[in-house]
């Protein structure tokens, strides 16, 4: 039996006969998924409240990686300071963009919103080239995480383990913010009826700004965390933004849990798919997307849109 499987897919045979290998692939799936979750959560949050599909989210991620490079490699700051600086820098950029540009388009049609966010992609892509040039850079792992950790079953890179842990931490933090704080209640109210919220005397524009800033900070932070294994380089945002859209659409646009589950599914499907059918790596993520769209067009954790416009 196993020989038959080996003929069809050597990767699948290894998965079935070597539990260590299967375990490593599971860890690969989780760590990749968690890094993507941090970024996708920001995208989903922004859409959930602002109802804007922000194509520039990928370029924010790229900026995060570049800022990380500058702060940690050029100025020699510790790794985590670099990651916080990346989040902070993107927060500032987002504040500026929201106040000057986004504010003009909340009431505009979707096409206008897409055009604006796409314009930001092009402009920020060129700004990055002016600041950092076109070279690819390399960011070192933090010294304490450059090696591997013994998990009993097998050794696994410490840095990737950290990614597996930081994803759930961010999930819990965001969940706590949304469910347990006043800001969270206002935000949830704003997703349901912004006019009513404004009529009740809540400063809705401030809610919008804060959501956009926090969502963008997540992109910057995610880019900083990705930079040691995904070198900062022009165009690094292009594949990432597609992955993120797959995740948030599978999970349901605007749903935090959806992004989390979507990111995990993406990691699992990509990694195990690549092992089993190495010549068709790209197909699996989109198959996942297709199946979800056929069965639940609003995503696994999303809510169907009530009625027409």
């Amino acid at each position: 039996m196993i020989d038959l499987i080996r003929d069809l897919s050597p990767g699948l045979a290894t998965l079935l006969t070597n539990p260590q290998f299967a375990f490593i692939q599971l860890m690969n799936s989780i760590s990749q998924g968690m890094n993507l979750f941090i970024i996708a959560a920001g995208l989903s949050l922004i859409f959930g409240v602002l109802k804007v599909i922000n194509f520039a989210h990928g370029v924010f991620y790229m900026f995060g990686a570049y800022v990380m490079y500058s702060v940690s490699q050029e100025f020699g700051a510790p790794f985590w300071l670099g990651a916080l600086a990346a989040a902070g820098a993107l927060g500032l950029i987002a504040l500026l963009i929201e106040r000057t540009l986004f504010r003009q388009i909340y009431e505009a049609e979707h096409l206008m919103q897409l055009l604006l966010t796409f314009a930001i992609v092009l402009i920020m892509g060129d700004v990055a080239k002016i600041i950092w040039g076109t070279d690819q850079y390399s960011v070192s792992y933090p010294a304490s995480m450059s090696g591997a950790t013994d998990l009993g079953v097998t050794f696994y890179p410490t840095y990737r383990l950290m990614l597996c842990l930081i994803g759930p931490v961010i999930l819990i933090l965001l969940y706590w913010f949304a469910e347990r704080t006043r800001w969270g209640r206002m935000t949830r109210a704003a997703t349901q009826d912004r006019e009513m919220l404004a009529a009740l005397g809540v400063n809705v524009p401030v809610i919008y700004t804060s959501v956009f800033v926090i969502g963008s900070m997540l992109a910057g932070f995610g880019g900083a965390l990705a930079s040691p294994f995904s070198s900062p380089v022009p165009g690094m945002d292009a594949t990432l933004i597609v992955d993120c859209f797959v995740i948030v659409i599978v999970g349901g646009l605007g749903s935090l849990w959806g992004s989390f589950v979507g990111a995990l599914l993406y990691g699992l499907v990509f990694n195990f798919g690549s092992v089993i059918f190495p010549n068709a790596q790209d197909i699996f993520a989109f198959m996942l997307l297709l199946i979800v769209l056929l069965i639940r067009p609003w995503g696994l954790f999303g809510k169907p849109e009530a009625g027409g416009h």
Partner: protein
Amino acid sequence: MKRIIFSAVASTALLAASGVSAQEIRVGALYPTSGGGAIYGGPAMEGHNMAVEEINAAGGINGRMLVTVARDTKLNPATAASAAKEMITKDKVDVIIGGLSSAVGLAVSEVARQEGVIYIATIPKTIQLTTTKLHPYVFRTASHTDFEGDAMAQLVKQSGGTKVCDIQPDYAYGHDLAAGLKAGLARHAPEVKVVADLRPKLGATDYNVFITQIMGAGCDVVTSGLWGSNFVNFAQQASPFGLFNQIKAYISGGEVASHEIAGKMGDDYPPNVISNTYELWYDHSVPGHQEFQEKVAARSGTKETAMWPVLAYIGVQFYAEAVRKSGGTNSDANVKALEGMTLMTPVGERTINPADHQANTGQFWGPMVKREGFAYKVMHPVTYIPAEIK
């Protein structure tokens, strides 16, 4: 739309006014100068401009000046093909020089064939360009995947490894390099087995799934053509697994020995890497190289220079010599002139084989090691592996 028509009319008028006369030689340059490819296309364009300026400063060719018409390929074959077509029909270029990425090279070559205009491929390496897709108007001054694969096979033999894991980007270059390597192994080291063939897509960001397969395959040598940021990402992800320490050698095509990779990676550059490059700013074994390198350094404002300028420079050198020899810009006459032409370039003598239009472009190969006086790993010793398949 109006604007496009207007600019088309305007540029035609301009062409007429300036009189695209027999006086100037119009050279089309095709490199990616925006987006991800700009890392390579930018420096290549510098080399191109440097060659053109030098020729013009020396009085042009038979008194005729070179004029560059540059367009951006965006690293995209379709964009490159339409840019090539426009250059020929609208800008009336006499030749197209450049191309980066094998996919772009094949697309531009096809346009050159249809239009009967010479295309000199300075960077694309896929073997198809000068074999199955060969036509009278395409020439290549870059190396190709059979030469590169053969050199890698020789190095596998030298490393003493017997089990090879091969990981290649999933597009024309990677597939052809894998084939070149296998053919080379059959010639030089028939005892060596390729135990894993892995094909991550070009530009993939997560290599863990492939790295762990290599770790599990029990190979003692890894061969690869992952280039540019693909190599950087692969190396950064493989190092924590200890991959580079557990193998005899990581033998890599794709020029990851070049300054632009090694310099940027610094201490993160992994151990046991043996790789190649067309040019090294610190190696002046070829006469005239030092002078060339200093000029590039002066242009770029850095002592250390990238490998890309020399590739574009050589393309212009060859075309200029062809025009000098044939006395004009007639494509068919210049095809004849280029066939069998020998030139001294900043990285050695090159001859174009009249049979397949391929220059005998070998590369510098060697282990990447730490040396005194350098801030990052450099190639030492440097060996030139000539372009020949025995």
